[in-house]
């Protein structure tokens, strides 16, 4: 696992810093400096060992309470690991530049992996299970949380051992990009299938009577609109709804809350008119 460097800092200190970071980084998250205080508190086991002089220690702490914000589960442990290694080598400038330089790129990678690829696929799957009354739905989310936490120590040691190499690894990320692309495609296939399956309940009860003349006799026949729609395009109403919401976001630049209100009003009106 880890090759802890020589010096006053012991392996226990490094491990303690790692767990402080993994568990509490965001506990004091605030608008002003976001994850800054969590970062400092996690770094304290290292700083208090490296800087014996109180004034030097204060200077080091001031550096470590500067603004910091990135994805806490994907990225932050690696950045912190690299910074710990640099602080331990009394290389404060490098530690600071790793921190400032990597928080943006890692926030981008981490947020797209979790928010655009991982969570939606999991969520749609889990919701489908839960709709059918299965506890498997919420348990999938529990497993997801454990999965990401399990990857955090690994990221920390990667950052710790790689140090400044980490920066190059992230900068030249052709492999990461290809992986993201493959996962995007997987996501799109799944979403394409889930739109009709999740929203299958959206059908219209509208019927209309038609007079047909069969062998010279006029007969009344009730035609269900849904049947006709299904012949044209199955799941047409769900598709129209998603298309409408998408148009509101894309072309009208509306906020999610506004769209939510519009869709709610639309639902009540169509329900009252017995259209849906």
């Amino acid at each position: 696992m880890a090759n802890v460097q020589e010096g006053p800092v012991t392996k226990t200190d490094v491990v303690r810093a790692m767990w402080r970071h993994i568990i509490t980084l965001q506990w004091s998250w605030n608008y002003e400096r976001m994850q800054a205080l969590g970062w400092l508190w996690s770094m304290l086991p290292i700083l208090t060992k490296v800087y014996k002089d109180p004034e030097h220690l204060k200077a080091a702490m001031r550096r470590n309470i500067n603004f910091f914000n990135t994805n806490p589960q994907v990225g932050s442990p690696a950045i912190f690991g690299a910074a710990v290694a640099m602080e331990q080598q009394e290389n404060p400038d490098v530690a600071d530049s790793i921190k400032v330089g990597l928080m943006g790129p890692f926030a981008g990678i981490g947020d797209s992996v979790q928010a655009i690829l991982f969570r939606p696929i999991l969520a749609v799957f889990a919701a489908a299970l839960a709709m059918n009354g299965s506890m498997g739905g919420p348990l999938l989310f529990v497993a997801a949380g454990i999965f990401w936490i399990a990857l955090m120590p690994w990221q920390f040691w990667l950052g710790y051992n790689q140090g400044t190499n980490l920066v190059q690894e992230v900068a030249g990320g052709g492999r990461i990009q290809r992986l993201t692309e493959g996962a995007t495609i997987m996501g799109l296939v799944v979403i394409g299938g889930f739109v009709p399956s999740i929203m299958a309940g959206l059908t219209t009860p509208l019927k209309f009577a038609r007079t047909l003349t069969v062998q010279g006799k006029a007969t009344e026949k009730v035609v269900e609109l849904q049947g006709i729609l299904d012949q044209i395009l199955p799941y047409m109403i769900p598709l129209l709804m998603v298309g409408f919401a998408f148009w509101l976001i894309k072309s009208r630049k509306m906020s999610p809350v506004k769209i939510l209100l519009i869709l709610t009003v639309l639902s009540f009106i169509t329900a009252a008119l017995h259209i849906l």
Partner: protein
Amino acid sequence: MEGYGIGMALILAVWSYIAIVTTLGPGLWWGEALICGAVTGLLVGNVQVGLQIGATLTLMSLGMWTYGGATMPDFMTGAILGTAFGALKGGSGALEAGLAVAVPASILMTQLDVLGRAVTTVFIHGADRALERGDIKGITRWHLLGQIPWGLTRAIPVFLAVWLGAGPVQNFINVMPEWFMKGMTVTGMVLPALGFALLMNMLPIKKYWPFLVLGFLLFAYLKVPVTGIALAGVAIGTLYMSLKGAELNG
């Protein structure tokens, strides 16, 4: 079912506190609407309504994420309150009654999320002062107590709503007219459209739309079950990646 006592209000408040703080760190995802719905359902004795409300809120939230610390509707608190009040109604109208509470609660709670994130600023200033004194214990205290504004901005509303709100909310639920129930049913089915649309907005649809159509036809025309579609997605994604890799390597 009768309203809830102070005991249940307290238990749900504690759960909401734990759920938000463990979501902050280490990131247990217990704040997910589906988990909160199921846990609340277990506590109040109606798991089914918890699962349904959690699932509906989850689908609404598909494309949402707290990018860079942005505020989004608080589906966690919405799921807890919606499940608690939906279970009070019980029976066939439980989901509709629960959603009628859950959706507005999720939106109103965004104000408290902003409050929690703002109040914690006091804590980092406290830590700044402790730092200048060289007071390591003080820094530790300010940091670890930073969870309190986060937890209480969820726990207090949950406590008050479940304890005091049962009466008024229940009265409302009991007299819910037919048109309102029907409206909520349709709303529940329509709202996932928002989640899907937000998600599509985040993805490079223009470039990759054929894959979306592929998924649709697998379900709509070929009747492939959802697990099958997920497997097809893995296969197609991997295939695309290896073909692209081969192309790059000449």
